[in-house]
């Protein structure tokens, strides 16, 4: 067994591509070996800025001999067929083997030297390498067919055991020679074999293993900070990036002028990280310190003093530019900046950012004026007081509003005041897009607006809303809870969704150029976290009014938007372990625009389906539904598709305040048809006991379930359905549906249809899997 070493040396490989390149090298190599029937016992890969290396251990020196059998014509086939086969295989008739009247060519392939396999594999790997971006270079590039590599390829080390595997790619001939560190050891080093590679390079100031470099940087940076009495702000991304930028990393701590600490810490950290790849440090109080840690690639002759000084100077220049932007921006009131938003196009069909801001401001005001977003907890399901960081769902007592210590004026903040704050914040929330700082660092949008608003004397709630209104930007991001922020954040996202749906710009497949999925997830996260209740249609109509008359005519996106939210809800709830088919089952009822209520129903359904009663009822339902389907029995209460029972009732105003004691009329209208109406037809025969029992059970379960649903007591509705389980089981056990008498058959089918209808009042069980 022998080890193989491959080093592909090139000009500096971008740091961000190195990890992926190692994976690709291993994958391509393994695939090339597999073609020859070879497998290495171990594959190790390394990457530095200047080399991509693979070590394959435990390769045999030869591939196994194989005997390949090819089926030929029948022995009785015409001579032309035989001739063709002989030509193809290069054998004579005598060499063929006959078995069961068919001729076979058996070709013994002796084992090949592994070195030969490798010599062919190396050029194939290089030519097929999937760099995310590759280039041509040099004199060979007069044609477009010249080799492409991430940067010019400089050398190939290929050693199988102690022997060079001879090969050539684009004029580069393999050998045993490489180079050490660009500055510490620029001369040639001769590698003996896979075993001395890492250590020979280490002796020449090259740490080949990226994990080791990472470790050196992590430890060195932490220690340097500690020595200065500071704590390093850990940054995994920076560790990897700096490891990818160095062959011999040396972390060095420097200081910058403390006067720059006037600039917001986020700006300093971003400047240091993004532009310079520096770590930053915290002092004992946790505040940002005037220190940075850079990672040099040399063991400098002066111990690094010149490097630190140079880096300090660069950071100072960057920070003084940032300070220039910050000071300049501070002088211009956000209100004045906001006026410049009419120069920025939001979308060609949707006007400028100024237009968007106007819609968002109106929508934010509407959300407050409708009581959807309120300064205290608006609803009965959750309880607790709004505004704090405690998720509302955790608060227990709905009826006694607990004062929120973080905002003394919470209690006195009237709906009108809150509406004004929300509108004010909305009108300023995008103003920082035209500031110098955000122009330089787009990722600081929101944050800078928050700083400027606070410095310019805006209400703290307004400043916070400007700062946080983009949140949440992804799974795991903070979800706003302050009512002003909630109003602006929700309005901003709803506007984006409504606007793009109104012009039919919906996400398709993997394409979501306007990040509408993220916006919808943000809406859902805010809604569920703050237990906001409103219906989508009402919000869409409010948006239409905010957008102006010309928009109402094309506001056809509502139906799409409903389904879109349902889809996003599934994605969001998957994380929480909620089954998507149960969401479908509830959503299929249609007309449910209140996602909080929809979710409550789904939760109850999931709990119910998990019980024995639920599982059996589901089985009974499916059996009934199958029979009905087989008999072509038209459902007496067809499921609504989207537009549905009850959905047309206007909602909005009363919704947020609705309590279980005041069932909503729209729910009442979803009651099953009354028993007298059908199902309990006066029978022309005496029903069997199980048949009568099921009818009786339905008589009591139907109104009980309906009442429970009306009261939003979904667990109660499930319990009412559960009473059907035993009668249904009994019915299927002792009653024959398909009776010879048409009367009996029709009556029993009608009974099953009642079962189906009763169940559908809770959820469309046909959507439930399993």
């Amino acid at each position: 067994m022998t080890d193989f070493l491959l080093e592909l040396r090139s000009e500096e490989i971008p740091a961000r591509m190195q990890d992926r390149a190692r994976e690709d090298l291993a994958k391509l190599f393994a695939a090339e070996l597999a073609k020859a029937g070879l497998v290495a016992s171990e594959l190790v890969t390394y990457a530095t800025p200047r080399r991509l290396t693979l070590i394959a251990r435990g390769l045999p020196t030869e591939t196994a001999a194989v005997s390949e059998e090819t089926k030929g014509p029948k022995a009785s086939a015409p001579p032309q067929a035989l001739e063709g086969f002989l030509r193809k295989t290069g054998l004579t008739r005598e060499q063929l083997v006959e078995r069961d009247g068919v001729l076979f060519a058996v070709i013994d392939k002796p084992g090949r030297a592994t070195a030969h396999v490798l010599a062919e594999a190396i050029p194939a790997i290089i030519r097929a390498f999937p760099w995310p971006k590759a280039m041509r270079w040099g004199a060979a590039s007069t044609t477009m067919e010249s080799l492409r590599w991430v940067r010019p390829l400089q050398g190939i080390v290929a050693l199988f055991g102690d022997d060079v595997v001879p090969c050539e790619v684009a004029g580069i001939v393999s050998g045993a020679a490489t180079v050490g560190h660009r500055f510490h050891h620029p001369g040639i080093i001769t590698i003996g074999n896979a075993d001395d590679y890492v250590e020979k390079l280490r002796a020449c100031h090259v740490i080949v293993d990226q994990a080791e470099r990472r470790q050196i940087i992590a430890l060195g940076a932490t220690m340097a900070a500690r020595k200065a009495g500071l704590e390093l702000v850990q940054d995994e991304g920076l560790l990897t990036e700096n490891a990818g930028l160095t062959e011999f990393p040396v972390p060095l701590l420097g200081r910058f002028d403390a006067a720059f600490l006037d600039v917001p810490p986020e700006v300093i950290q971003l400047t240091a990280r993004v532009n310079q790849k520096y770590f930053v440090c915290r002092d004992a109080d946790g505040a940002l310190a005037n220190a940075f840690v850079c990672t040099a690639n040399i063991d400098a002759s002066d111990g690094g003093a010149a490097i630190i000084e140079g880096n300090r100077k660069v950071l100072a220049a960057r920070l003084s530019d940032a300070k220039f932007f910050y000071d300049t921006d501070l002088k211009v009131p956000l209100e004045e900046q906001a006026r410049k938003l009419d120069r920025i196009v939001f979308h060609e069909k949707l006007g400028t950012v100024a237009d968007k801001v106007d819609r968002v401001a109106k929508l934010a005001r509407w959300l407050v004026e409708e009581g959807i977003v309120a300064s205290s907890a608006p609803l009965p399901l959750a309880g607790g007081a709004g505004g704090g960081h405690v998720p509302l769902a955790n608060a227990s007592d709905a009826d006694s509003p607990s004062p929120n210590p973080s905002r003394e004026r919470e209690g006195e903040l009237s709906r009108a005041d809150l509406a004004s704050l929300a509108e004010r914040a909305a009108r300023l929330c995008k103003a920082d897009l035209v500031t110098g700082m955000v122009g330089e660092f787009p990722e600081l949008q929101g944050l800078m607006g928050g700083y400027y608003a606070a410095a310019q004397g805006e209400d703290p709630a307004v400043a916070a809303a400007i700062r946080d209104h983009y949140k949440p930007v992804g799974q795991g991001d903070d979800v706003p809870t302050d009512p002003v922020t909630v109003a602006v954040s929700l309005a901003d996202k709803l506007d984006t969704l409504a606007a793009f749906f109104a012009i039919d710009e919906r996400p398709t497949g993997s394409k979501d150029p306007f990040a509408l999925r993220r916006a919808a997830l943000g809406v859902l996260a805010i809604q569920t976290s703050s237990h906001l209740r409103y219906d989508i249609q009402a919000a869409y109509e409010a948006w239409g009014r905010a957008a102006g008359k010309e928009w109402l005519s094309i506001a056809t996106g509502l139906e799409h938007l409903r389904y879109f939210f349902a889809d996003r809800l599934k994605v969001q709830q998957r994380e929480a372990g909620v089954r998507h088919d149960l969401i479908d089952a509830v959503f299929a009822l249609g007309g449910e625009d209140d996602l909080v209520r929809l979710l409550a129903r789904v939760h109850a359904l999931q709990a119910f389906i998990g019980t024995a009663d639920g599982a059996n009822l589901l089985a009974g339902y499916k059996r009934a539904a199958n029979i009905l389907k087989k008999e072509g029995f038209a459902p007496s209460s067809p499921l609504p598709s989207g537009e549905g029972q009850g959905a047309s009732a206007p909602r909005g105003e009363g919704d947020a305040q609705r309590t279980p004691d005041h069932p909503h009329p729209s729910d009442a209208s979803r009651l099953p048809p009354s028993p007298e109406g059908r199902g309990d037809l006066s029978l022309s025969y005496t029903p069997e006991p199980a048949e009568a029992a099921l009818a009786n059970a339905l008589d009591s379960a139907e109104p009980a379930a309906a009442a429970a649903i009306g009261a939003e007591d979904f667990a109660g509705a499930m319990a009412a359905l559960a009473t059907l389980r035993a009668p249904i089981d009994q019915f299927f056990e002792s009653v024959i549906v398909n009776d010879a008498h048409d009367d009996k058959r029709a009556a029993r089918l009608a009974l099953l249809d009642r079962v189906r209808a009763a169940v559908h009042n809770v959820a469309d069980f046909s959507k439930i899997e399993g």
Partner: protein
Amino acid sequence: MAEAKRCAWLTPSRHCGKARRVTQPLSFQNMILRLHDYWSRHGCLILQPHDMEMGAGTFHPATTLRALGPDSWNAAFVQPCRRPTDGRYGENPNRLQHYYQYQVILKPSPPDLQELYLGSLAAIGIDPLLHDIRFVEDDWESPTLGAWGLGWEVWCDGMEVTQFTYFQQMGGFDMKPVAGELTYGLERLALYIQNKDSVYDLAFNDAGVTYGQVFHENEVEMSTWNFEIADTDSLFDQFRKHVAECENCLAAKLPIPAYEQAIKASHVFNLLQARGVISVAERQAYMGRVRDLAKGSCQAWMDRNGWAA
């Protein structure tokens, strides 16, 4: 405001006498002479700046046009660059609306281009065992020239001192062969070599003249003009006229004058940007217009030389 500017202007000159030391680092002008000497010894033509306002040395016809086609081409030159939006009224020690680039173009790119480049740093006195020299990924793209390339920004102790690019396309044409382009930021390099914090404190020569004495007033006045005074109606008018004249030249199959009009249009566009009168939406359209002119000029240059794309 005027007071502050005057003080900033006076500060560097007060210090210039003290800047003289026994072991004097390279002055700004001597640094240029060393680079000329180095690249001349390595086979480059030493050209002079192109006599037009442009945003980068890449716009010099010796780069843009000469990069095209199969002929070998090795040249080095200084090019003054104007970036109106980068003006800071002479108040920022590192940002200028007018500065110098040292540009080297080598076609085809030689196999030892990185070593040649590092040799030039040594020639101007940068010790790579004292200073941290790094090649950091930076893919270069010039939307107005329809050009792109792969390479790095070269860092010296964390400061970008050179843009190092292997051109892959110019004017929308594939490079056959590929040219290597080195663009040195002369002021930044000088800050290192002379160990100064402000560009205005740089020794321009060895006789006590500072960069500030030569250029500070220029920065103050040009920033004021770029940002506040330039007549935008006139600029819009000029833009239209350069576009028309470029098209006129292209119709006459004259790529060089056509390209010069494209350079002028590009600079006028930059001035309009600095005046803040081009909206984000319009910006793309203007850049597309300039790109069409530059691409058209490159096409005409290819045609006139009989080169196939």
